[in-house]
């Protein structure tokens, strides 16, 4: 198990390095079109060939990996912060705020995640610059992904609210905010860390789903979602198998690392 965990971490690190410094593997920009070479086969110049618009597939794969590997943790961080705020306050304060938060969490969890994402993303502007589409897609995923984590954080904070250390802190006259920040939230940090790690593969897959349905990151910026789209046409060349393969490797690696963090929390 430990060996698999190291293997997963090494693989993720290698992919992250390749995505952060794509210049080490290819010098072609991801959006440069070689119009005389559309759908070019594998060659020394293009190790994975070119797509139907004559763009270097290796370059697009590396830049797409960069987008997904950097934006998904950012979205996970956003949703974890929201979960800590809503769940922490609801569990610690109790009363009407707790009831309102639980109702909101129930409402959001009663709608399937993909349905909610598609509905909300489709309502936002679709014809936007590529960079804005990255922010919109991952921002939305982060904003909608907090309820399940918030429920767990709330449960943890409720338990801590009645614990000896919190009772003693309050008996000493510490204000509620300080008790929450200094004594409650640090004690639920392992839960938040586990939730953060568990969210990353889920958000990578969510972006891939949205991208496949044409609601993800906009062209010409590549992401795993739009890199998988050639599969839909039914005329996808062999190179298209690389995107799902790398996606699978990353998600499986993330899942293994998440499982190990859950064990630590337990």
């Amino acid at each position, binding site marked *: 198990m430990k060996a698999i965990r190291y293997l997963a971490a090494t693989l993720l690190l290698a992919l992250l390095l390749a995505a952060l410094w794509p210049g080490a593997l290819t010098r072609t920009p991801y959006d440069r079109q070689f119009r005389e070479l559309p759908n070019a086969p594998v060659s020394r110049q293009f190790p994975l060939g070119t797509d139907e618009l004559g763009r270097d597939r290796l370059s697009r794969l590396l830049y797409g990996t960069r987008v997904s590997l950097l934006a998904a943790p950012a979205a996970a961080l956003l949703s974890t912060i929201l979960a800590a705020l809503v769940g922490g306050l609801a569990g610690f304060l109790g009363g009407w705020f707790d009831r309102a938060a639980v109702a909101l969490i129930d409402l959001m969890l009663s709608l399937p995640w993909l349905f909610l994402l*598609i509905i909300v993303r489709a309502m936002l502007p679709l014809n936007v610059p590529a960079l804005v589409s990255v922010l919109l897609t991952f921002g939305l995923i982060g904003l909608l992904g907090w309820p399940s984590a918030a429920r767990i954080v709330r449960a943890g904070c409720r338990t801590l609210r009645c614990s000896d250390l919190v009772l003693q802190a309050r008996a000493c006259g510490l204000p509620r905010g300080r008790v929450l920040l200094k004594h409650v939230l640090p004690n639920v940090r392992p839960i938040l860390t586990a939730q953060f790690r568990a969210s990353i593969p889920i958000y990578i897959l969510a972006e891939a*789903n949205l991208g496949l349905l044409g609601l993800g990151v906009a062209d010409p910026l590549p992401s795993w979602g739009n890199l*998988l789209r050639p*599969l839909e046409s039914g005329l996808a060349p062999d190179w298209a198998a690389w995107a799902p393969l790398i996606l699978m490797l990353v998600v499986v690696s993330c899942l293994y690392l998440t499982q190990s963090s859950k064990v630590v929390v337990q």
Partner: protein
Amino acid sequence: MSLDAAGTSARTTRLGRALLRIAATALAGGLLSATMVRFSPGFGLDEKQLDARLSRESQEAVLRSHDQERNPLRFYAAWWKRVFAGDLGFSQSLNRPIRELLADRAPATLDLMLWGIAGAWVLAIVFSVPAVMRRLARLAAVSSLFSGMTASLPAAGIAILLFRMGISAKWMVALVLFPRLYQYLRNVLQQASGRPHVLLARAKGLRWQPLLWRHVLLPARAQLIALVAVSINMAFGAAVAIEAICDIPGLGQLAWKAAAARDLPVLVVLTVMIALVTQMSNLVADLSTPILRSQS
């Protein structure tokens, strides 16, 4: 008051509160979706406004047809009034009454979901029961690998790959649900089969088959029923992507088309309906838990 009567009264109160909570959640969900659609860009625009053959008066009439929807609160109140009168509204983008759309499309989605959930449960049971009960390490490794592979692909990706292989959409739903069900089921079975009396029975040489039903599945039935409730929610989520990819005329595709066209009445109906179905299935699971525990 006797103990039985007190117990029945407490259960009725709890059920009433739960139903009220569900109604409030569905109401809030509908209002939220109405508000979101109202403030989305492109709301209120109609393709007919671009039709050069229409006179100015006709185009203004087309524009006015959305007037009622501009205030989400007013729209939502009027919508509920119509719902109680049996009218779910009219889809502007598909040019049909919503009741008809639901009646036409619900069977396809229900069929997809039912077969998908059944397939996923069969797969999860086939892989997890022998792996846990017979302690087959190789089968456990193979099923974990298979579950990991399916869990690491997006639902839409699985739909495309299986669609190209000519495999039925029902199997697509089953494969999307399988990894989640497999993991939960394996954990539940591991917990139940790790109980002292089960371990003792195994140590005394009892075969696993007689133990499985009476001492593993029956004590874990409350968790399994909760898992069935969760799988309904997951199956609908998968159905949205799969129906959109495979062009299946179901409720998922309707949601997808309505979202793209900002069709407010359809989205509100779907949101309220899905929230109600999910909450009701969770309520059934919640209510069955104490009853099942008291029986065991």
